[in-house]
């Protein structure tokens, strides 16, 4: 007996039949669906406001979208696992406040401040992950609703509720500077998105994230270390919130304990507008980016048009519903 335990023989490794042409068109349509929404929206705004397409304004949009881009990318992971992270806004606050304490109040080197910022975010996310998996809490909605309060309270207590300002160049760099015309924060966004794309599609952990969202029990029985993956997911979500916080430091040259209030809602909206499903297992990095841009373009455009914030609220609410509805139609057309 040959001690090969595989039953795959050479002949089985046939070239894969190219899937029928229409499938790939569908796939493309599915992938780029929200993009059409973004293009449509931008066209309307370009007509309504002459400033909209100016280079200056495009860099505005890039800059204004970057914090949400980072938070939404983090949020994509829990949502892919059929979870959610409501605490990202509070994690952002506690991370930047700690960075401020370390690098401004206690006068430590800026690099340490930067590391502390990201580490605090990751640790806060880790706590979310541990609560969920080790306490076997039924749903992250509730654990992150809890930590949303806890982290916010901590940020307030740590600072005695006062914002910290006067950050050094290094700490402000990401949020403040541009390389040529492109804001550093947006470059960061692009880099992180590419990394996450590779992570989600080309690594085991990435694929496991989709598997867990699809069927947690089947994932466990397929040998997927479910708890470890979930802990990774929430840790990364916390880390991304802190990265968003780093940009916020630069944009405001300050760290306020009340920063990031309700940021979770924008992040969730972006992920869902970008085509991800609350039921888990469905969603992409690029869809999320488009979701982020749709929201950012909308806010920017409404500002340019001088709309009141009340009307902006209405329009953004309507666009959230509309974007998801268009997605529903598209999926239906391309065959459930």
């Amino acid at each position: 007996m040959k001690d090969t335990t595989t039953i795959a023989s050479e002949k089985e490794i046939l070239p894969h039949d190219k899937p029928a042409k229409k499938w790939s068109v569908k796939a493309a349509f599915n992938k780029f669906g929200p993009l059409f929404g973004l293009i449509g929206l931008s066209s309307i705004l370009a007509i309504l406001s002459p400033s909209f397409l100016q280079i200056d304004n495009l860099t505005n949009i890039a800059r204004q979208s970057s914090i949400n881009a980072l938070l939404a990318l983090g949020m994509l992971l829990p949502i892919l696992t059929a979870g959610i992270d409501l605490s990202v806004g509070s994690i952002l606050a506690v991370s930047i406040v700690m960075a401020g304490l370390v690098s401004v109040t206690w006068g430590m080197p800026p690099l340490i401040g930067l590391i502390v910022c990201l580490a605090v975010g990751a640790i806060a996310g880790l706590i979310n992950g541990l609560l969920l998996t080790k306490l076997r809490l039924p749903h992250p909605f509730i654990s992150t609703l809890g930590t949303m309060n806890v982290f916010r309270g901590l940020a307030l207590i740590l600072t005695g509720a006062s914002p910290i300002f006067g950050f050094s160049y290094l700490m402000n760099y990401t949020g403040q500077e541009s390389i040529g015309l492109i804001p550093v924060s947006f470059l960061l966004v692009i880099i992180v998105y590419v990394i996450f794309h590779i992570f989600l599609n080309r690594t085991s952990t990435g694929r496991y994230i989709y598997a867990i969202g699809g069927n947690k029990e089947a994932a466990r029985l397929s040998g997927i270390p479910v708890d470890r993956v979930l802990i990774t997911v929430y840790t990364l979500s916390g880390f991304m919130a802190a990265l968003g916080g780093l940009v916020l430091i630069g944009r405001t040259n300050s760290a306020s304990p009340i920063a990031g209030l309700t940021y979770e809602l924008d992040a969730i909206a972006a992920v869902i507008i970008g085509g991800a499903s609350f039921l888990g297992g469905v969603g992409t990095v690029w869809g999320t980016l488009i979701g982020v841009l749709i929201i950012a373009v909308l806010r920017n455009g409404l500002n340019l048009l001088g709309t009141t914030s009340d009307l902006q609220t209405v329009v953004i609410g309507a666009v959230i519903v509309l974007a998801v509805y268009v997605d529903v139609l598209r999926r239906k057309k391309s065959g459930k």
Partner: protein
Amino acid sequence: MLLQVKDISKSFSGVQVLHDINLDVEEGEVHVLLGENGAGKSTIIKILTGAYTKDKGEVWWDGKVLNVTRPKDAIEAGIATIYQELNLIPELSVMENIFLGHEKKRGSKYSLLDRKQMRKDSKALMERLGQRVDPDELIGNLGVGQQQLVEIAKALSLNARLIIMDEPTSSLSASEAEQLLLTIERLRKEGITFIYISHRLEEIKRIGDRITVLRDGANVQTVPVDTTSIDQMITLMVGRSLDNKFPKIKFDKGKEGLRVENLKLDPESESINFTAYQGEILGISGLVGAGRTEMVRAIFGADPKASGNIYIFGEETNIRHPQDAIDAGIAFITEDRKEEGLFLDQSLIFNKTIAKLNRVKSKGLISVSAQQKVADNYVKELKIRPNNVNLIARNFSGGNQQKVVIAKWLFTEAKVFIFDEPTRGIDVGAKVEVYNLINKLVESGVCVIIISSELPEILGIADRILVMHEGKITGDLMREEANQENIMKAATGG
């Protein structure tokens, strides 16, 4: 003529799966739908009941055109359905499930529920099916068999004239299946009509009146059961005859593959010991709840065990999670594909590769071209239809979904394969493919264990049969000495 289906067609995203189907069902008969996996049986049923909408064609019911746009229409017309996948609400009680959608009220449509009456009625209905169940028990606390009976009670409570059953026995133990068949026979005598789908041909022989055979979404023929042999059924179904339903190849017994020593699921239970070898197929038989699934789940690390040592090819392993088991080279094909096997919204290729992603990596990353290369492995051999590795699992027929799960585990190249009811819901032709594949596995040196509740299957393919009773191994029979009687004897505790 109670029900007439005329020229029904249906396509999903441009792929036509039903072509002008016709079906006549006489009052009081058990009408069987027969066809390979993916032939379109479930699709017809779902169209009849309003779960899907048809593209074309008509349904006549009791001499009139019946327009079904939602499940309620069919139910109100007197058609009750037990789908391939159970449709009960685990959080509700037996009584509530039975009367779900047609509750008894204390007066008009708008009054409060008459729980007393429903409790009484559901008790009576279950007793009519030979079950004494507390009507207030939650469905989630019942076994699959009893759940299936609750579904039937639900159909009866609707005073349905036609009950449709889509593979009702596939997830039942032998005794539960038997109970079901007896019930159908009795109800048929009471004048109820059935449409019955099953891949267990013996069952069809026993309770069916006429068979309508489908192939690739089209009618083949309608024949009376009396004058049709099982072999003829197979020929009609697959388009050719199957000379051997159990293609058994004899290999030499090799090295020890899996050895289980002193396995205890909980500290008080008696210990389990057995060894499976290369070159043999080890079958495990037993009655409902004999503890076979529980035992292998413990071996695989899916559930915690109290104690016990497991050796893989002589090497001791410490298995605490399924992950450990897979690393040690064990594959476990579970009995419940939907809950425990499949990622329904992911593609075939995703499902297939997920348990062993290292095989499709290059330079540490999953590579598209590596995936392309292995895409068709097993898909052809298992005749997974349609042969589209990008189709999401949900859109495969039940039997083909089962094959996807098998493909997933084959892909792990494990050294020990444990199959729990592997041919559940698989058509006769495909079963042979699965057996052939298992033979191939054995030939390549894999150690194979199969749990099956179908005696002919276990007798047909196993080299050695362990019999379990109440969590203990009560029999160890070689192929030559095994027969229905001595298995039965061991299964009931000797």
